[in-house]
Each structure stands twice: as C-alpha cells, then as structure tokens.
C-alpha cells in the first residue's frame, strides 16, 4: 500500500492545570488516505481538538510524529511549513469567533489567495466569486461583513476560505455542531460533494454520531487522550466494542420508529 496522505504516530501531549500535570494525549496514532474521511469522536475533554491543534501547528506535541504528503510535518519551519499549510486547512465550530466580524466576506477569501499566491491579483475577484459559487453562496454576499450573514452562511464562507488554497486535507473541528439540522444536512452534502469532485480528505471531529455516520468512511473513538477503538464507521457504530463506543451509541438520541416503540 502506498503511504497515506496523513500518518500520525505516538502523539503525546501533557498540559498542567491547577498545578496538576496530566496527559491530554497519550500515544495517539491514525492515518487518513487521500479522498477519505476519518471521524474523530469522543466525550468532551478526550483530546480531539488537541490533535487538531497539533496538526495545525498551533500546539507543540511532546512526542510522536505526523507525516503529511510524505513530509515530517512537525519538523517543518518557515516557507516549507507555509507551503504545506496551504494543503492542510481547518474549519472551526464557530467561524464568527475565528473571523474579524467587521471583515467582509471578500476580504476573508482574498487573504488566503494573496498569502499563498494562489492566483494573480487581477484574477482574485473572479476566484472569489468562483469560491462563493462553489459553496452555494451568491456573489452578492462578497461585500457583506461577517456579522451581516447567517450562521450557515458563515460556515460556508469558512469552507470556501479553506478551499481557496486547494487543500488535500481539511480538519473540521465540530464544524457543523452549532448549525440547525436543515443547514447541517446542507453542509454535510456540500462536504461530500467537494470530496467526490476534488478528492479532498477530511478529519471530521465531532461527538455527533449521526453526522459521523452520514459522512465518515472510518471512525476513531477517543477517551482520556487515547484512541480506544478504530474501524469502518458504519460497522463500529452498528456494533461498538469499546465501553466508550457503546456509551456514545447508547447516548445518541434516536427517533422512535413507530408509536409501538415509544414507551
């Protein structure tokens, strides 16, 4: 088998809190193939976002390695890191918090195009319109400020911004969790479509197993900084083996199938 797009091995990270030192990550390993979606699920505090922050180089790992497109990601510095960062993008739960609320949509999309020199200056307005169209937004939104658009529209802008640099992997940390169900279904459809068309891989971080089941090929379940179960998403959700996996499945609210099953 060829090398995976992303290979993570033995990732460990300790934090101190209230004078106590504890392991937020303890030997985490997984891989993602090109064009694949891996879901990282687990209870609050299990370490999911810490994994994402290490991949994005926002937090330094204590131990372990991350290989992305054949390169040792954690060893990269300066221009080499910037070049790789273009291929590894991130979308957070609340894009409002991540964006300057007074910045216009056009400005948000222009930044990555400019910083990574994706297209010439004269081509950028066209590229911005194309990105908006790509995520199902009208070009007329370009002039609006971030605080003047809805939550669902903001999440689409965040995805468009991540797409600007033509990434091969997007880390989505609870990216659909705050959205209304109808909007969430739309965004999940959009992500699946982008993956089909452009072969983008996703690391989909969530504690919503319903969304995971709808979008992920594989799943890794975390608890207490470790991966406690890993496998094909639907198979694991149908018959989890780990205690955490069982608890997550049992806790996921299901619609009563018919009146008979409503107790």
């Amino acid at each position, binding site marked *: 088998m060829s090398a995976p797009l992303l290979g993570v091995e033995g990732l460990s990270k300790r934090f101190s809190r209230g004078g106590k030192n504890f392991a937020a990550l303890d030997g985490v390993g997984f891989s993602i193939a090109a064009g694949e979606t891996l879901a990282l699920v687990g209870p609050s505090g299990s370490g999911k976002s810490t994994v994402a922050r290490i991949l994005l180089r926002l937090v330094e790992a204590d131990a372990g390695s991350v290989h992305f497109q054949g390169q040792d990601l954690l060893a990269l510095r300066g221009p080499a890191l910037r070049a790789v960062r273009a291929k590894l993008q991130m979308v957070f739960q609340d894009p409002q918090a991540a964006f300057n609320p007074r910045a216009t949509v056009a400005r948000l999309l222009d930044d990555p195009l400019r910083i990574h020199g994706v297209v010439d200056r004269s081509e950028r307005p066209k590229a911005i319109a194309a990105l908006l169209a790509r995520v199902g937004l009208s070009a007329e939104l370009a002039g609006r400020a971030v605080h003047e658009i809805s939550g669902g529209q903001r999440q689409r802008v965040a995805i468009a911004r991540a797409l600007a640099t033509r990434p091969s992997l997007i880390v989505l940390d609870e990216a659909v969790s705050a959205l209304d169900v109808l909007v969430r279904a739309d965004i999940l459809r959009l992500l699946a479509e982008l993956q089909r068309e452009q072969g983008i891989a996703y690391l989909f971080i969530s504690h919503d197993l319903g969304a995971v*089941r709808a979008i992920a090929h594989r799943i890794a379940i975390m608890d207490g900084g470790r991966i406690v179960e890993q496998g094909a998403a639907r198979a694991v959700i149908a018959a989890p083996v780990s205690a955490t996996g069982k608890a997550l499945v049992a806790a996921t*609210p299901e619609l009563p199938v018919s009146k008979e099953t409503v107790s």
Partner: protein
Amino acid sequence: MPLLSIRGLGVRYGNNVQALDGVDLDLGAGERLAIIGESGSGKSTLARAVAALLPPTATLQGKVTWPELGRVARNGRDIGFVFQDPASSLDPVISVGDQVAEVAHVNLDMAWPAARRLAGELLDRVRLPEPALLASAYPHQLSGGQKQRVAIAAAIAAGPRLLIADEATSALDTIVQAEIVALIRRLVDEDGMALLFVSHDIALAANLADRIAVFRHGRMVELAATGDLIAAPVSDYTRALLGAHLGLGAALGAGA
C-alpha cells in the same frame, strides 16, 4: 383545568422583530411538552414569556394565564428555569450549595440552616458526585455537566409546578446530555412537575415529551402527540425536520 394557558401570544422586540405571533397553547399539570424549531424561531422567547423573563424592550400581545394556580405564576417559586449555559445562571462567587439554598430561602421563606440542609438533599438528588463536599465548591470548579446538575437543583428547590429547560443540554457532550435528560425525566416523574423542554433536536424531544410543538418564524406550525407527530407529521416543515435528522439506525438517515 390546565396548569398553563396561552392565548394569542405575540412578542415583539423593539419595534421591528415580531418574535412570536398568535400562539395558542395549553399545558396540563404534569404534562411534558417539547418546543422545537430552528434558530430564531421564537422558542426561547416563548419560554421567557411563560416565565415573565422577557426584557423590558419586549412588548406582549395576548394572554398567559395559570388556571390551576388561580394567580400569576412566580419564577423561582412556581416555575423553575434551566438555561443552556449553566455558567450564566450560576453566580461565580457564591458556593453552589448556597445558590441552591438561596432559592429555598427566598421562595419558601426557609431559614438558612434548613435551606442548606435541603440544598444538600437536592445536590444528592441530582446526583452531583460527593454532594456534601461539592456543596462548598464554586461553579468554575465543576464540569459543564456538573454545573447543569446544580442549575437543575436550584430550579427545583422551591418545588415548582413547571420546569422549563431551554436548550439545557445543548452545550454538553452526547454522553453527559443523555445523563441530564435522564435526570430531568426522573425529577419530573417523581415530583409530578410539568415540563417545557426547548430543543432544536427532534429526536431528543421525542424521547422526553408527551407532545411536541414545532415553531417556525415565530409561529406554531404543528402541535401533536409525540407518536403522531413522528409517524404522521402534518406540516411540510415538520417533515423536513424529521428528514434531516441523522440517526444511527439503518432505516433512518439512510440513503447516504
């Protein structure tokens, strides 16, 4: 005679936002009603109108009455209110035990020693771990789920007839959410409280409520017994919400 009767309720914020319009609704004693709908549909506005917690900028049309009480319900005494963000309803500089005790002290005219004893019992009832020890803890020393247990203990301290939970589990992870929902169900059963459960999660609502009211753009578009609403929704909007629910079962959420 219903516990709560809502007739022609409308709420307008400032001069331009009609957040609720023409809502008619009854809630029986001990009945569990879920309010669902998308962001901005007016769910919290309804909950706050019932508890008389609307901001002064809001103007009210129609009537909220309490036929069974024969008087206006008092928040704290007759109504317990649990918010989405427990941090916002708990005072950061008062121990959690005293916050629960204060509700009993203020609303039941209970002397402090008795109120503190009651608080200890309530923290035990909501299954706060080591209640005797954690009663003297401050909110920031508790997890999100533990804070929500404290907020629920405070909400039920005066033995209210109605518990309102406005997205009380939305900020919690799935496992903790299920624990809090189970706790709410048990307390409502044990005390015979009516429940107004506000949520945007139709499956969560269906697992807890006798009836479900679906809101959209400030109007109630459907109100039905839970089983009927799930099995045979009348409005297109309810059908869309049901269709967008991503379940785990093979029959549901399939087609991906």
